[in-house]
């Protein structure tokens, strides 16, 4: 357990609206080891981004974390989010066009972040800002440029430089490449991955793209309707999925190879339940081909640290 940088223990995030209480995250646990890249995958609304927001204490009201604890470097940070933001855990958002303040030069935004967290002089901060830009492949002389003069991919590079500037130990990347062109996506992912590997920084990579998961992550967590469906080593989970939902996700991922031309893509029938209409028992059972009686009655826990599925109850997973 010692090499766990972050432990998310049984957290629930709830929203109250006039019809009652909705659970956006339900009893979710996962952990991140030092230097590893953990992927979080799932459909829209499954709670991937919410997990990231919960870790940083950035859930927008009226939502709030109603139970559970978040432990970071051996300390509970439930009430200490401000202290860890940026310096310890930092975040990258989906849309680089919206992530930078349009009215301020990127240099000012970099300097502000560096001077807030690092105990350095202004000239040292400028030096670091220039170095930071260089590392993400941007001409350091563009320190005085405004965000609108950069393309989407370049802005995401600036965002990465900003997120790395306070030298955090963990970066939560919330769909960092979804808004970018396919050709730029790989560059940005590689850049992020390499910079973090160099520094020993861990990443939580939130995405809905199974291809990105396969190429980038060490481990992967699959979320469904606010609950953890399956978690494990990426290769293991993708090649030998234990949860029927994971299996469905893997099968419905498009492939480009000789065998898959003109073959129809697998579809998981139905849609993910809305938060105000959650079925009893396992949230996935109405769509599950393998559902048994128990699935509609009781919510499964995570068996063998791997998957939350009743089918695994009596089956030990051999590692």
């Amino acid at each position: 357990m010692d090499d766990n940088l972050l432990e998310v223990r049984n957290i629930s995030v709830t929203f109250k609206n006039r019809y009652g209480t909705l659970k956006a995250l339900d009893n979710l646990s996962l952990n991140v080891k030092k230097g590893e890249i953990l992927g979080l995958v799932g459909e829209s609304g499954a709670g991937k981004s919410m997990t990231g927001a919960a870790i940083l204490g950035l859930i927008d009201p009226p939502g709030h974390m109603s139970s559970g604890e978040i432990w970071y470097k051996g300390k509970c940070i439930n009430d200490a989010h401000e202290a860890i933001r940026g310096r310890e855990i930092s975040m990258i958002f989906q849309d680089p066009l919206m992530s930078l303040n349009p009215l301020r030069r990127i240099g000012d935004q970099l300097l502000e972040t560096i001077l807030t967290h690092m105990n350095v002089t202004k000239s040292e901060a400028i030096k670091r800002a220039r170095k930071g830009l260089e590392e993400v492949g941007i001409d350091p002389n563009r320190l005085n440029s405004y965000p609108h003069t950069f393309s989407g991919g370049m802005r995401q590079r600036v965002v990465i430089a900003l997120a790395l500037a306070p030298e955090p130990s963990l970066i939560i990347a919330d769909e960092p490449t979804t808004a970018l062109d396919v050709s730029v996506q790989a560059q940005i992912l590689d850049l992020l991955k390499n910079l973090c590997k160099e520094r020993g920084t861990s990443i939580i990579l939130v995405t809905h793209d199974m291809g990105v998961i396969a190429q980038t992550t060490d481990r992967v967590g699959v979320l469904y309707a606010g609950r953890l469906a399956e978690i494990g080593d990426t290769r293991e989970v993708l090649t030998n999925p234990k949860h029927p939902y994971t299996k469905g996700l893997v099968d419905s991922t498009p492939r480009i190879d000789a065998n898959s031309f003109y073959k129809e893509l697998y579809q998981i029938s139905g849609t993910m339940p809305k938060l105000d209409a959650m079925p009893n028992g396992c949230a996935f059972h109405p769509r599950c081909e393998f559902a048994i009686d128990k699935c509609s009655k009781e919510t499964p826990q995570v068996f063998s640290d791997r998957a939350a599925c009743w089918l695994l109850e009596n089956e030990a997973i051999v590692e």
Partner: protein
Amino acid sequence: MLVIIFRRLGQSILVLFIVALISFLIFRYVGNPVDNLMGQEATLAQRAALIEALGLNDPFYKQYFNFIWKALQFDFGNSYRGALPVSELIASRLPATIELAVTSAFFALVLGVIIGIYTAINRGGYIANLILSTSLIGVSLPTFLIGVLLIWLFAVELKWLPSFGRGDVVQLGWWSTGFLTISGIKSLVLPSITLGLYQLTLIMRLTRSEMLEVMRQDYVRFAKALGLSSKQVNFNHALPNTLVPVITIAGLQLGSIVAFAIITETVFQWPGVGLLFINAVYFVDIPVMSAYLLLVGVLFVIINLIVDLLYLAIDPRLRDSNTSE
């Protein structure tokens, strides 16, 4: 950058020509200036001489440009009442209106933005909600009623502040100011509040809703995620982005403060151009009315020009996008 400024200047001048045209049409065609000037006993020969002297036989465009040419030299003819030059009348009244307008605009803008920020940051708090519901009164009460209520409370009942007039003024060249005497400042309080209250609530509500909108943006969330303090997030990131639309509305409101001053000046018998205009309307004093119209038009155009330039100063995107066109 320069290109945009010159283009805006060009547009402003065009607008001014149109305002001048309307002003001229009122001057020339509302009522008959000859009747107004001569009285009933004038002979036909005298009338003809005056028509010739006023250039009323000239073609339309010539009269129009003549009007503009004179207006550029601040010559709007003589008032029908008292036969004083209109420009002198306006010059003697203008300081009062400008001091009133500037004071209430300052009051509305500063307090409006501050309270707006407060209610946005403390969204849902008791004080914020109280302010918000009270502000509905400011939006819904008509100006003259607020003025009368204030007079009743602070002048009649409490006797703290004067109910009318400007108090003692000090002459600085042709400018008469009430800022330098205690009675002048006391006199300024009630009219400024009356005139500025509506704008205050409007700016406050606008600032609040814009700020709430901006605080939902990703760059604000990103600034928070980078661990910046809430002071840095609110004032370095959220506020500047909030101010862009607030400035537009505030600019337009400053113009309407001058226009609405008519009502406030009437309620408080404030000796400004608004009161001058109202009296001119009573006596069909056309030259004063048309000069006032032109003056308000010029003020609006100047304010809009300043607002446009402020835009450019605040938002780098506009600076670049407009020059590349």
